[in-house]
């Protein structure tokens, strides 16, 4: 049903329509509205599920592990510090092959503590073995959750749906919220591959030594490979039942004859598309490639979008997270995915943008892309970096040993 609705609320309704049986979460900004909405639905009897308020994120993921192993459809949500706190259990869930669905309301990781949006949280768990999907809009955020349950259960692999904290979670926009009867047709009930059943007991969670560990891990990788085939199928199924495109592996936008393509994940793509349209109107052949599925990394889909077109000269990767000492995270995966020829013939520039919630503006993007087209962009840079501020701190640090906490110094300089 078409509604003007807050993103968190739309997600809660989509999750509720997916008939989860156990919901268990710990509050953290900016995920709170999702879980609160679900809690209210359960309390009012609108959603028949067990709703568990637990004492930490570690407990939250642990509880949904127990629930999923028992054969219940289980859901949780977190962000930032909370995702890190449950990290051991995040890996455990994937290793055990449990089809848990989790919303990550993308938020920066401290220190310094920061409640605003970037992708550092989900990126920190990119190797945990979860499928990672990034929503571009609140419509997609709602839709991806429905698809996520289907994916997770078919593969016996947990799925993380990433939606930008605040930018999506707290934005009210038009969403066609998936309805119960639609979801019921699309999403069958959970048939576990493994289950704790007193009438047919199994032991789950054995220690596996050198003799079989590699094989178990191979199978995890194999599940990811299967996901590459399944994700487009699920998206196609979704399209058939719901009448719209949502999800999938990648989303090319005006890339066909582009000489420059901007690669990005998440809601920044909206602003990017506006910038692309403006530049196109001025005759500059720019396009964008949204990566919806980040894990597994859609190598073939990315190649298909970028490879082989000799008009493509440049790729600018917008990173919403930073790997200190290394640089771009998406860039690394992208480079690995592209063929030798494309990598050598195409300039790939990395731009770190919007860390800790710094707005990414169309104006900035236009300037950035203007420079990129002229070949005036360094291989690695930060968008809108306040160089004066960092120079002052570096100078302070050179001048005295006891220079004090950097973050506080910067804030003081900013006034």
């Amino acid at each position, binding site marked *: 049903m078409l509604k003007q609705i807050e993103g968190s609320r739309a997600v809660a309704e989509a999750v509720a329509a997916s008939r989860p*049986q*156990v919901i*268990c979460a710990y509050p953290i900004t900016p995920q709170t509205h999702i879980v609160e909405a679900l809690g209210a639905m359960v309390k009012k009897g609108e959603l*028949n*599920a*067990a709703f*568990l*308020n*637990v*004492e*930490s994120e*570690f*407990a*939250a993921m*642990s*509880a*949904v*592990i*127990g*629930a*999923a*192993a*028992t*054969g*219940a459809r*289980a859901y949780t949500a977190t962000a930032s510090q909370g995702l890190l706190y449950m990290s*051991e*259990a995040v890996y*455990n869930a994937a290793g*055990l092959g449990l089809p848990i669905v989790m919303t990550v309301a993308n938020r920066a990781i401290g220190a310094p503590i920061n409640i605003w949006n970037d992708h550092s949280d989900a990126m920190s768990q990119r190797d945990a073995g979860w499928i990672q999907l990034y929503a571009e809009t609140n419509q997609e955020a709602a839709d991806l959750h429905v698809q996520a349950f289907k994916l997770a259960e078919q593969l016996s692999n947990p799925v993380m749906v990433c939606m930008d904290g605040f930018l999506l979670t707290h934005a009210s926009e038009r969403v066609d919220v998936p309805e119960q009867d639609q979801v019921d047709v699309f999403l069958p009930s959970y048939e576990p591959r493994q289950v*704790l*059943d*007193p009438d*047919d*007991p*199994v*032991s*789950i*969670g*054995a*220690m*596996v*030594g050198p*003799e*079989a560990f590699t094989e178990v891990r191979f199978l995890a990788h194999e599940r990811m490979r299967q996901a590459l085939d399944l994700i487009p199928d699920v998206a196609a199924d979704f399209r058939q039942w719901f009448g719209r495109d949502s999800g999938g592996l990648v989303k090319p936008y005006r890339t066909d004859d582009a000489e420059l393509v901007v690669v990005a994940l998440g809601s920044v793509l909206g602003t990017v598309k506006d910038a692309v349209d403006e530049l196109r109107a001025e005759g500059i052949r720019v396009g964008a490639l949204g990566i919806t599925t980040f894990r597994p990394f859609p190598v073939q889909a990315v190649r298909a979008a970028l490879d082989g077109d000799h008009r493509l000269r440049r790729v600018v990767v917008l990173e919403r997270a930073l790997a200190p000492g290394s640089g771009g995270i998406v860039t690394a995966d992208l480079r690995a995915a592209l063929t030798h020829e494309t990598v050598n013939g195409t300039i790939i520039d990395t731009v770190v943008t919007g860390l800790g919630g710094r707005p990414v503006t169309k104006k900035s993007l236009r300037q950035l892309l203007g420079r990129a087209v002229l070949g005036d962009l360094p291989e690695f840079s930060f968008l809108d970096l306040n160089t004066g501020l960092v120079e002052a701190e570096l100078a302070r640090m050179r001048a005295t040993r006891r220079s004090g906490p950097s973050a506080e110094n910067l804030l003081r300089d900013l006034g």
Partner: protein
Amino acid sequence: MSYERIKFYQTGSFAAGNRLLPEDLRSVQSSDTRANTLTCGHRACQGCGEALGARYALDAVMRATKGKLIAVNATGCLEVFSTPFPETSWQIAWLHSLFGNAPAVASGVAAALKAMGRPHIRVVAQGGDGGTVDIGMGCLSGLFERGDDVLYICYDNQAYMNTGVQRSGATPPAARTATTPAVGSEPGNTFGQGKNVPLIAMAHEIPYVATATVADLRDLEYKATRAMDFHGARYLHILVPCPLGWGSKPGDTIKVARLATESGLFPVFEAEAGQVVSAAPIRHQVPVTDYLRLQARYAHLFHPQERTEVIARLQAAADRNIARFGLRRRQTKEDHPERPLLPLAATDHTPGER
């Protein structure tokens, strides 16, 4: 044909089973239809108290629940020796997730069973002292606070045994472990505040808390069974000597456990909703040295010279337990109708009695 003369004990708590007893009073282990929840073939050490305790506790729970049970296990000795890949000695539905999350995982299992409309299936979570007292404490307290329908069993061998005998929050003062070595001027574990999890559980006022040891296996069976009479969060704390970590003889496991209770160092009691309702009386109190001498982890208290002041402190702790829990005589709920059975003053202690 050679034969051996056997001494036969009539009824009483130390008999495994006796045809003269009504069936429900016999040990679960005497039944040939017992669940054998933790069946043979596991890799526990010779004389492992935990394997013994787990077998008795879980078979009792299985009888009480007619086999409708799911178990969640923390990482630790029990988990490791019971599931050496590719084998398992568990004959029930069993899940191992992580070290510190068994209580939370069990909460999730219980929630799922409720949501799926299968509340007749019960849940047990279990772990060693490490996974319970230290790394699992947050999750354990959360389980208690919510009152999720889970029986949590702690097998307390008083250190992180699986990883090589490192000290835990349950390691008693003066005990040697790999991280509290018997060297220097104050060898062994320091005298800290300790962490009495049964009392913490009672502070949560959960329906049932009990302690037990492998010295009195019938009592252990009774408590595991009794725990399943209740719904909500329940806690069972079982002292399980570890020959390897304690440096005791494998054949002495039950004896050492008995000395722990008879000295007063490990009080055996039951509590309901935060009030002690029964405490096992000490028949003949033994000095703590009887207990300590059997374990190499306390050898430094006797050699090269006897550390009388340390032993005296341990003795004082034992005496305090006896006073606090009233272990000199049989106690019942009627003795303490309105107040918790934990007098802070030594008024319950009869002076001079020893």
